[in-house]
């Protein structure tokens, strides 16, 4: 039986989604995403969808254990996210999320660089649209910054691909060795931009919180995890990644301390958790890489759950700042429970999926040999639990009641959260299901040993105690934290503004200086008696127009230069 590419299923649904409304559209969306999930489940192994292009073989559907794993979670996330957003009425946003998901699937199933790059570009544009659908002025500005960064990263990646192609002669998507030289570096940087590795990470924390309630859920799932997939494929065992990942993990945790906006805080935690995955890829052992893949799987689920919860709070109360929230547990009990499930997962509490995957990476880090990596990851764990498990729920759901009256939430949001929560708990209780689908099977790691469970519980308890003692000084303040993007945000704004206004000013000066020449010529032509009779009517000039004389001047210069160049070259 011919199983279609899951991305193709989503893309074919797009025109129908554009043309339908209401219940029909909702049913269509759920059916399409469910169908792509089934397709992902049923794909047989091997390379299919081979197309010839520019003398190269494009492999559109490469199915092995790694791409199967990612395909499964991506399509499942597509379904959950769509269900979460079913109440939204904006057709454009649905199309953007469908295309975004399809692009991500295209990248992970790609067997060659050309298809992968095409998918990445598609994802970039679609995610830009999702950010812009946030609708606010801030979303607009953040979207522009987002696309600049991604285009820059994409250009570097493109340059690297081209360089690799010219060196190796083919475009298969496979492990790149460091002796590829500049190509290695360029592709690595290009992928790291998408993975939001500091200092190239600011686009994430800048743009993700500005998208709509449903949009952010989608955004969190795909761009960074696609980058992690690429890292696993291309650079397993690259030591620089182990360090980058560890630093990243702590960086996100540190910056999150200062955050007041709950969705931005969670965005910093995306960076922190992706740091675990990057470190796992960098450490390179079978356990570490399996852990990275498993953690990506778990992260998509629990991060979506957390963001769905935060989004629900935003939707119901209209607020997203810790300084403005509190005491919602009584009014929104189900959301609180779902959120706490997500929080337990991200913190690595035993019996939830985060523990099952994160402990793989932390165990690998203790065997890695570089103690600093292990310590950094441990500190990051502390920070994660502190913010998402303690601080955020305490100040949002518990804590002093500010008398907020949350509105009722649509049922589909609850269903979506329930699905994600169930998956988190399910995998936590039955890790074997996930382990059987990891890239390098069989997996010998056992998460539920006394050692692992006890160390995790101790860490959590210690953090909890410290939190409780310090809780009053941890409340958010109405501040904005500077991040690395401020280094270039101001200069870029200055440059772009400057270019635009500078051109206007230069043009104005040209006009003023040369206007008289133009006037004379035109007046003489229009009324040849002007030379004799200056009182003939004046010429109406316009703003910054290049006078003909300038062009003819350049023609003359060009002609002389060219002739001289040729003359000298042929040695006359």
């Amino acid at each position, binding site marked *: 039986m011919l199983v279609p590419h899951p991305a193709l299923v989503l893309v074919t649904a797009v025109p129908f989604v554009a043309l339908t409304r209401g219940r029909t559209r909702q049913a269509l969306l759920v059916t399409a995403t469910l169908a792509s999930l089934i397709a992902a489940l049923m794909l047989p192994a091997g390379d299919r969808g081979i197309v*010839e*292009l*520019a003398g190269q073989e494009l492999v559109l559907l490469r199915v092995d254990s790694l791409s199967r794993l990612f395909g499964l979670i991506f399509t499942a996330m597509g379904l959950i996210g769509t269900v979460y957003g079913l109440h939204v009425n904006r057709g*454009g946003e649905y199309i953007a999320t469908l295309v975004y998901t399809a692009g991500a699937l295209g990248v992970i199933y790609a067997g060659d660089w050309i298809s992968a*790059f*095409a998918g990445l*570009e*598609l994802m970039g*544009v679609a995610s*830009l*649209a999702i950010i*812009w*659908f946030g*609708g606010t002025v801030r979303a*607009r500005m953040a*979207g*522009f910054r987002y*696309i*600049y960064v991604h*285009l*820059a990263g994409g*250009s570097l990646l*493109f*340059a690297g691909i*081209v*360089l690799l*192609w*010219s060196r190796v002669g083919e475009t298969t998507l496979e492990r790149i060795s460091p002796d590829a030289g500049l190509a290695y570096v360029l592709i690595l940087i290009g992928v790291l931009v998408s993975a939001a590795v500091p200092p190239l990470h600011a686009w994430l924390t800048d743009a993700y919180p500005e998208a709509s309630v449903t949009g952010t859920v989608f955004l969190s799932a795909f761009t960074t995890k696609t980058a992690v997939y690429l890292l696993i494929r291309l650079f397993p065992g690259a030591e620089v990644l182990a360090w980058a990942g560890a630093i990243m993990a702590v960086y996100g945790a540190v910056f999150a301390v200062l955050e007041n906006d709950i969705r931005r805080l969670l965005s910093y935690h995306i960076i922190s958790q992706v740091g675990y995955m990057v470190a796992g890829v960098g450490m390179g052992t079978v356990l570490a890489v399996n852990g990275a893949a498993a953690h990506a799987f778990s992260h998509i689920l629990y991060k979506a759950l957390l963001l769905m919860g935060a989004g629900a709070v935003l939707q119901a109360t209209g607020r997203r700042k810790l300084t403005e929230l509190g005491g919602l547990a009584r009014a929104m009990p189900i959301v609180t429970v779902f959120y706490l499930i997500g929080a337990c997962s991200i913190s690595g509490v035993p019996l939830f999926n985060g523990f099952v995957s994160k402990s793989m990476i932390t165990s690998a880090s203790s065997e890695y040999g570089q103690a600093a990596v292990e310590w950094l990851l441990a500190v990051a764990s502390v920070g994660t639990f502190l913010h998402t498990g303690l601080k955020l729920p305490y100040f949002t759901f518990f804590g002093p009641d500010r008398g907020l009256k949350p509105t009722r939430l649509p049922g589909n949001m609850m269903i979506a959260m329930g699905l994600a929560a169930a998956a988190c708990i399910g995998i936590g209780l039955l890790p074997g299901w996930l382990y059987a689908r990891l890239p390098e099977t069989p997996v010998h790691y056992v998460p539920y040993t006394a050692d692992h469970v006890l160390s995790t519980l101790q860490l959590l308890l210690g953090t909890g105690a410290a939190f409780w003692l310090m809780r009053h000084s941890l409340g958010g303040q109405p501040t904005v934290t500077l991040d690395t993007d401020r280094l270039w945000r101001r200069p870029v704004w200055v440059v*772009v503004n400057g*270019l*635009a206004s*500078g*051109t*206007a000013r230069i043009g104005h000066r040209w006009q003023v200086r040369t206007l008289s020449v133009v006037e004379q010529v035109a007046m003489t032509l229009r009324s040849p008696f002007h030379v004799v009779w200056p009182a003939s009517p004046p010429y109406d000039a*316009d703003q910054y*127009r*290049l*006078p*003909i004389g*300038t*062009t*003819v001047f*350049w*023609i003359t210069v*060009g*002609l002389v*230069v*060219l*002739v001289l*160049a*040729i*003359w000298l*070259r*042929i*040695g*006359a």
Partner: protein
Amino acid sequence: MSAHLPILIVVVPLVAALVVPLLGRRTPGVAHAVTLAALIFALVASGLVLARVVVDGVWRYQLGGWAPPWGIEYVVDPLSGGMMVLVSFLALAASTYAWSYLLATDPGRIGLFDSLYLLLVTGLLGIVATGDLFNLYVFLEISAIAAYALLAMGGDRATVATFRYLLIGTVGSSCYLLGTGYFYALTGTLNMADLTERLSGVGESPAMAVGIGLIVVGLAIKAAVFPFHGWQPDVYTYAPPPVTGFVAAAMTKVSAYAIFRVLYFVLGGTPVAASALVFLGGVGVLAILAGSWLALAQTDIRRMLAYSSVGQMGYIVLGFSIGSPIALVGALFHVLNHAVMKSCLFLVAGGVRWRTGFSSVASFVGMGRRMPLSMLAFAVAAVSMVGLPPTVGFFSKWYLLLGAFEARAWPGVAALVVSSGLSAVYFFRVLERTFVVSDDRLVATESRELPAGMLGPVLVLAAAGLLLGLFQQPLITHVIQRALPATVS
């Protein structure tokens, strides 16, 4: 009959141009039908000629049976065949658009418009088909004069802008003529193939340097290569939309074709050509950067598109300069891409202005909902200009970048990358206003979708862009690669 196709492709529009004004007075509908018929004939005939030439090789047709070098001959190879198809396709699309546009704005002048339009098409097809240097000048002038008249139809500002174009364009044509004169003095022949043979006998001399310099500069002026582009932004801004849509797409590309023909076929492989190409390379990099930068500062969308064209011409010229097979494929493919997509962009921009009276970038707010199909086509074309997959623009840029990389032309690579970013900025600015922004910033409150006569060509052009991208492989292997000169491939 089919043996005379090359000449008929040029003659039929010419004859139609003479017939149409007589019909136009009383029955504009019939006049336009004749115009369309002539253009359809040109398209079909070009297609047949191209098909034959791709299989059989170069087709030399001698006018009146007079053998060169005394007689004039038309030379059709895959390159000129492809260009003929492109020009007639664009002409047909713009002419269909023009009918609806003129019917609504200025129905009395349809006959005149169509006549001049056919003369313009004749001129362009002639440039592409001819194998004689002086004959090329004749057609260059025919197309230029017809273009001046057409472009000036856009109102008072258009008249002034066209007058400037006339002055600068005449300088360009004169340079070309002088250059041709030099070569005639050197070799005694005007036939391109004959010239190539005789030049190998003549040693290198200052006269040759001056001759080639004049020809290249003359054609570069016509092609609006920076810094000779001063006439272009004004002309494109004020001319009537169907004219801009055709001229912006076809005229400059035909001039670029002429540069390619002269430097690679007539003077292929000679040191003079190589030096000229180095000059063009430098100029191309400047064009790319200047065009993209200046486009950023514009508020009127037509002027923004005009400066964008300056940048895109830089891509093509850079590709010519690099000269490797991949770079040339990229340049020729970019000719195709730019012609089709720029035409679509200008036609949509003109349509928006016609409907709403506004043409600033700010006036595009909310257009996505009011003119959804036009804006969809606009978006596809804009995405192709920026160079995102799976549009044609992605592939042409890919080839150009690959060529620049392999040739280690780092300024070219840098310019291509930077301009991609800049064009993303100014195009996405428009797209964001069109599709995403909410209504409270609407400038143009009343507008509906374009009429079918204008919307049709726009959609066909946009679809062509997508299809060309998806099916670029057969196009490249069968047509474009065979269009490369023997000295290169």
